[in-house]
């Protein structure tokens, strides 16, 4: 693998995920152990004033996680990853994950990259915004 040297302003992604489905929300509930009914039970989500089931914030964060691990590869390490959940994702939404390098520094022979990351729906609404830091070897 050739290791790219990152620079401030470099873009990361995009990673466009297939539309979120209700089946996926059931799968994610099972895989994560998060059985909050706002994600799977239509009536509950309606009564909670959400207008229908919404995706787990952690599912969208996992999409952004995939963007990062796809970018970093197996030679690098994700060091920090944090997000705010800023909008709701509903079944049918197509999520695009992207990022931008903010700054880099050298540490122990590796390049440590700080970037902003986000995920947006097909309508352009940002549903996750955050920051990540990863380290990559430099040849």
């Amino acid at each position: 693998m050739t290791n790219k040297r990152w620079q401030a302003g470099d873009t990361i992604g995009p990673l466009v995920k297939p539309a979120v489905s209700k089946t996926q929300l059931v799968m994610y509930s099972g895989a994560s152990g998060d059985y909050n009914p706002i994600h799977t039970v239509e009536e509950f989500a309606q009564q909670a004033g959400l207008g229908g089931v919404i995706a787990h914030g952690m599912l969208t964060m996992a999409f952004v996680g995939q963007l990062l691990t796809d970018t970093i590869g197996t030679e690098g390490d994700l060091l920090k990853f944090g997000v705010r959940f800023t909008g709701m994702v509903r079944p049918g939404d197509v999520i695009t994950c992207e990022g931008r390098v903010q700054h880099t520094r050298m540490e122990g022979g590796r390049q440590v990259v700080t970037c902003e990351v986000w995920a947006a729906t097909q309508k352009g609404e940002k549903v996750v915004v955050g920051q990540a830091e990863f380290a990559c070897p430099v040849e």
Partner: protein
Amino acid sequence: MSVELFAPFIGIESQPVKNEVEKGAIRKFAEAIGDPNPIYRDEAYAKTTRFGRIIAPPTFSRTFDYGEIPGLRFKREGLIHGEQHFEYRQPIGAGDVLYCSTKLADAYEKEGKLGKMTFLVYEQKGMNESGETVFLARSIVIYRG
């Protein structure tokens, strides 16, 4: 009312719970999030990487059992996730044994889009059998009880 409910528990930590990281659980998680990366499912491939084993996706640690903060009981249905942060010290791999605990770090009230809301800040950590910290996590959830 609700902040008063949580205030006595601020700073209280759960008893660490032993979690065994299962490759089947990692594969199911990767399938649920739609991530085809072979590092999450192909043992032969994983052995060729510097990790030497199947590893977990960056958000997988949320699936662990962190135990209960003694005495803190409330309706978790309808909780909304506000923020999630992870700090990774070591990779989490299939077959690893981690001791995970959680702590209510803070509880405060704020006026939000849906009326008065209570924000709960939790801090979690996972330690390996040698007592080293493998990861730290911080989450903010919104309670509308």
